[in-house]
């Protein structure tokens, strides 16, 4: 037995997916998450699908431990060593605000108070020349304080360390000598990029979560090993790839958004299996609607993220979150109807939860319309109160001169319009045409709204993967080992030193390969992607352009080709380009991927399989009227069968709504493929 296992810790449940390559079969389960013992929750979930962990060949984990430490502000106390004269940069934090009409604005609370920032003399200029030597007296005094106050984690962020790290390295050397047990995060290693505030904030974040992440990784590894597991523990990273638990402890920042990216990783895998290069992935839960984009088979990603207002420089799969979900409240304001962004949350929750909520939510509307089976919500774990939903809808409807039916349909229409408009703005920002995409829906409520959203956006195909509730964990099984490297590289593009570019990439490549070998990846399974951040001179934002795979930058015509790629990307994104304008490079980026084998979905096609038989056909309300609607259990739908709308497909983790004008088939991988005409 050679099982491949992935676990994903969510707020409520810990999901587990185990794949048996011999049988070609998946087993999934979920156990309640344990907020005080996350690893315990993982072990609980694991034991639901596996008796003997010694048969596990690969184990991937979506860890929320770093994120939780940050969100609950329960990370390690950190001392920051910063350049004397600029030590307040971490607190000034650029001075900007997004909340424009708030004259009582407060900045996000920094992770460390001002008194825990120690200025250290020493200064480099923008070319790395030393203006003042590193002050060793300052360092010694700092070490004494760190020792006497028993601080276990230190961040070091000096100006211009991205050009020349010598001062940071020297300071780290002094600390290592005097305080060998203290964990040290260096800004040039966390993020080799300019902008001292953003780099410092990233380094502090790294130092803040490092001890919790390494303790957790060690704890989980020990428990798994105690149960006999020999396979390496790998962790999902924010960039959509996986890394060994050991590396994750070394560079904890990379695992910060470990959990949420599983869905995007699943999207990438699905894109390959189903041969669809462009996907919009949606995950709709109780309070939030997450969107990620797969273009040309790759997850859309950014070099940085903002977490509760604090910047973090790290490659991260873009997950765009919009405040909409099953719990979004409908209410009256100034005589008009509003739906969201206010949410009923878990308490009191939607009226139909019977916990005292009296205002209708999106979930109440879905229930009232007959789209949710009151006896089979969350796989039957919660029985819904139809009466309460109806009452809430009718009460609000009376104020708005709408009957309950019309209001329920209206709530769904409004929330769908909001979600589809949010997707449209995202695609416009990126110069993408949504009609060229398929929509992938997962998470509990995603498949319920997906077809309507697709129709709004002119998308004609919706894909609901098997077990949409466990899709994130499944996605983790599909991920390659990934490490990202970057270097600042400011050069005028016209006289770009191509030999220098090549030698720098070669150097980064060597580091990357050796680090992937350390991860246990086979040499021939490693692939490298070289990229350049470029921009027109005078601009601040850059675009990342991928170098052609095997060509050498010093070859004839290569620069022209690169320039063309930049212009094309620019044009796609911004609608125009300026071929005459001068270009410059800003960063070199290298991504190393290590294929560790992926249990892709296996075709299981049975031609002429009769369509599954519906369990019942109660009436459901759609915009065009009430229809007797076939309800299917997902397990009864075999590859090859097809369904005509209106229909509802239920499974333990999700409900899929197929409106009257749509048709669905089950493909050979068990995916529900729904075709619907645009509006």
């Amino acid at each position: 037995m050679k099982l491949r296992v992935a676990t994903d810790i969510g707020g409520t449940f810990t999901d587990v997916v185990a794949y048996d390559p011999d049988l070609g079969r998946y087993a999934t389960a979920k156990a309640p998450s344990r907020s005080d013992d996350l690893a315990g929750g993982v072990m609980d979930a694991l034991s639901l699908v596996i008796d003997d962990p010694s048969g596990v060949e690969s184990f991937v984990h979506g860890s929320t431990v770093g994120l939780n430490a940050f969100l609950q502000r329960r990370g390690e106390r950190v001392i920051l060593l910063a350049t004397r004269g600029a030590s307040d940069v971490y607190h000034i934090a650029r001075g900007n605000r997004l909340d424009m009409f708030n004259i009582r604005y407060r900045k996000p609370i920094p992770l460390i108070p001002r008194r825990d920032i120690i200025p250290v003399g020493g200064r480099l200029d923008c070319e790395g020349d030393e203006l003042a030597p590193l002050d060793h007296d300052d360092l010694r005094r700092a070490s004494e304080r760190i020792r006497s106050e028993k601080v276990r984690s230190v961040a070091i962020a000096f100006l211009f360390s991205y050009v020349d790290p010598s001062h940071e390295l020297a300071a780290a050397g002094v600390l290592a000598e005097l305080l060998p047990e203290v964990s040290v995060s260096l800004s040039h290693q966390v993020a080799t990029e300019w902008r001292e505030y953003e780099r410092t904030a990233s380094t502090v974040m790294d130092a803040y979560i490092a001890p919790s992440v390494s303790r957790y990784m060690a704890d989980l590894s020990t428990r798994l090993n105690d149960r006999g597991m020999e396979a390496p523990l790998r962790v999902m990273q924010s960039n959509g790839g996986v890394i060994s638990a050991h590396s994750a402890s070394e560079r904890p920042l990379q695992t910060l958004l470990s959990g949420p990216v599983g869905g995007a990783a699943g999207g990438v895998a699905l894109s390959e299996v189903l041969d669809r290069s462009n996907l919009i992935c949606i995950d709709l839960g109780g309070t939030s609607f997450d969107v990620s984009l797969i273009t040309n088979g790759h997850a859309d990603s950014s070099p940085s993220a903002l977490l509760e207002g604090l910047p973090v420089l790290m490659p991260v799969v873009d997950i765009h979150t919009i405040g909409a979900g099953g719990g979004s409240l409908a209410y009256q304001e100034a005589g008009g109807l509003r739906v969201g962004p206010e949410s009923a949350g878990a308490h009191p929750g939607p009226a139909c939860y019977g916990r005292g909520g009296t205002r209708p939510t999106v979930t109440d509307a879905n229930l009232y319309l007959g789209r949710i089976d009151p006896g089979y919500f969350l796989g039957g774990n919660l029985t819904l109160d139809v009466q309460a939903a109806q009452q809430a809808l009718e009460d609000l409807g009376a104020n708005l001169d709408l009957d309950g039916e019309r209001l329920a349909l209206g709530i769904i229409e409004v929330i769908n319009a909001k979600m589809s408009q949010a997707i449209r703005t995202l695609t416009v920002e990126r110069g993408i045409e949504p009609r060229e995409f398929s929509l992938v829906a997962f998470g509990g409520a995603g498949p319920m709204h997906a077809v309507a959203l697709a129709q709004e956006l002119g998308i004609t195909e919706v894909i609901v993967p098997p077990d949409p509730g466990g899709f994130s964990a499944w996605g983790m099984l599909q991920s390659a080992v990934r490490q990202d490297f970057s270097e600042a590289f400011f050069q005028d593009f016209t006289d770009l030193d191509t030999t220098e570019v090549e030698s720098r990439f070669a150097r980064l490549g060597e580091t990357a390969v050796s680090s992937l070998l350390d991860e246990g990846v086979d040499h021939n399974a490693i692939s490298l992607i070289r990229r350049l951040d470029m921009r027109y001179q005078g601009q601040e934002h850059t675009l990342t352009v991928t170098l052609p795979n095997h060509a050498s930058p010093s070859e004839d015509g290569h620069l022209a080709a690169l320039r063309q790629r930049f212009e094309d990307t620019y044009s796609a994104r911004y609608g125009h380009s300026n071929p005459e304008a001068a270009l410059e490079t800003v960063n070199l980026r290298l991504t190393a991927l290590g294929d560790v084998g992926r249990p892709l979905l296996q075709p299981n096609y049975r031609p002429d399989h009769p369509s599954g038989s519906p369990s019942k056909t109660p009436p459901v309300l759609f915009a065009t009227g009430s229809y007797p609607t076939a309800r299917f259990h997902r397990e009864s739908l075999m590859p090859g069968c097809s369904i005509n709308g209106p229909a509802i497909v239920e499974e333990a983790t999700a409900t899929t709504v197929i409106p009257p004008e749509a048709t669905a088939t089950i493909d050979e991988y068990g995916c529900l493929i729904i075709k619907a005409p645009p509006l």
Partner: protein
Amino acid sequence: MKPDPITIEILRNAFIMAAEEMNAALIRSAYTPVIYESKDCAVALIDSRHRVLGQSSGVPLFLGNLEACTLATEEMFGRSVWGQGDIWIMNDAYLTGTHMHDVTVFAPIFYQGDLAGFAASRAHWLDIGAKDPGVPMDSTEIFQEGVRLPPTMVVRGGEPIDDIWSIIESNVRFPRSAIGDMQAQFAVASIGEHRLGALFDRYGRDTVEAAAEEIFRQSEQLDREAIRAIPDGEYTAEGFLDSDGVGDDPVRIKVKITVEGERLVFDLTGTDGPGQGPINCGAVQTLSACRLAFKYLFNSSQPVNGGTFRPLEVKTKPGSILDARVPAACQFYFTPLGLMIDLICSALSPALVDTVPAAHYGDGMIFQFTGINPRTDELFLDNEPHVGGWGASHGQDGEDGMIWTLSGNFHDMPIEVFESKFPALITEYGYRQDSAGPGKWRGGNGIIREYRMTTDTELSLWFERSGNPAWGLIDGKDGAPPQVVINQGTPRETRRLKTNRMPLRNGDTVRCYTGGGGGYGNPLERDPQAVQADLADGHITPAYAHRHHRLNHRD
């Protein structure tokens, strides 16, 4: 027939999202860093009767007046002037209200051959051909501040009007950037046209327009309810700017607010002016700033549309600094507006005691320097606002080191970016000890930022509110005033707050101190633990703790 509440709500969101989409396109394609980094721009989708359907603004001060541009154009040329495929540009300070760096581009939207609305955007261009590179600090007439464009067509029926483009290119110092930004603004117009057209296609023009009326009505109702909730009466406040930038006399701004049921009147006619220097502001922008003050105080999270602000009336005196006439200089039009907004808030503090903060540090505090960069042998120009302390309010300290209220999402410039681009070093950047206005809740801290030149340059400064620094509320005390010291601690030490193109030599230092925010409540009532925390964090000295909080060092 009135559309149903569902359609109305869908359209209300659709208008807002259309504006978001237009703004996203502008920010993404702009040329000038201040547009895409600081989002110094705004867009609006406007109906055929010059009312805002949806807008998105990166700068609070651009809150409410893009529709004034389409309206002014129509008043000048008649309704028949609008043609399909035309695009217009204007920056006339008296018509748009702001300075001439802010260029407004707008286009009529046609649907099935009929005028259906307008798409408009405003963005801050890098240079507009003023007498000095960047921003002159001592202009006395509009004619020194750059090329002044009344409503001017730049594209006719989809075809560029080449001679107008040439005029623009010939009158600015960075023509490539100007044309780049103008084209980015064109993209806004086409997105606006597309989105509005799609809504008309789907819901029908009549339905969309009827829904818009109802959406306006809802916004108006919310504003009326907010005004009704505060006590009737007359509320006043006055304050002074240090100078008009050229003369030395303080300039008075006087605010008289009348609340009468659902009606709110801001009477500004007691304000001085015109100023000889560049502190004059067109009435259109004064109105916009009054709307901003309103938005700070009421319904802050509600979107703005043609129904918002209807109960607000603003009175200005023609020729005063808040209602500028030719040839008054307008470069620093925002300086009186910042003071005016602080005064409006303070005036209303008796009625809104829990929401109104004490005064903020007050202005952009602009440092600008220019010269030839020895690394590139090219002209460089750096224009930076500086962060300072915000006012405290009931229950919370004022924030430390923030960009001033009117500029929203502007960022300070990172030292690493600054030194890589310009021939100078930043030798110190940090909080200014003891600058916070004392109070039960203290004001925010100002900062110190010191520059050292590494070549010969020219310095311009615009620092304000030294004579009338951020005041406290309800027994709170004032924050420290700003100051700028050149070559501090040397025989050549001088002080300036405003100056234009002052020559500096290699090695000269410029040390900028920004003000702290005003305190709120009696400082003697401050929680001793909060005083101790400020001491531990080095925000205040033991002397400050003793003087204002009677806290002795040994306590």
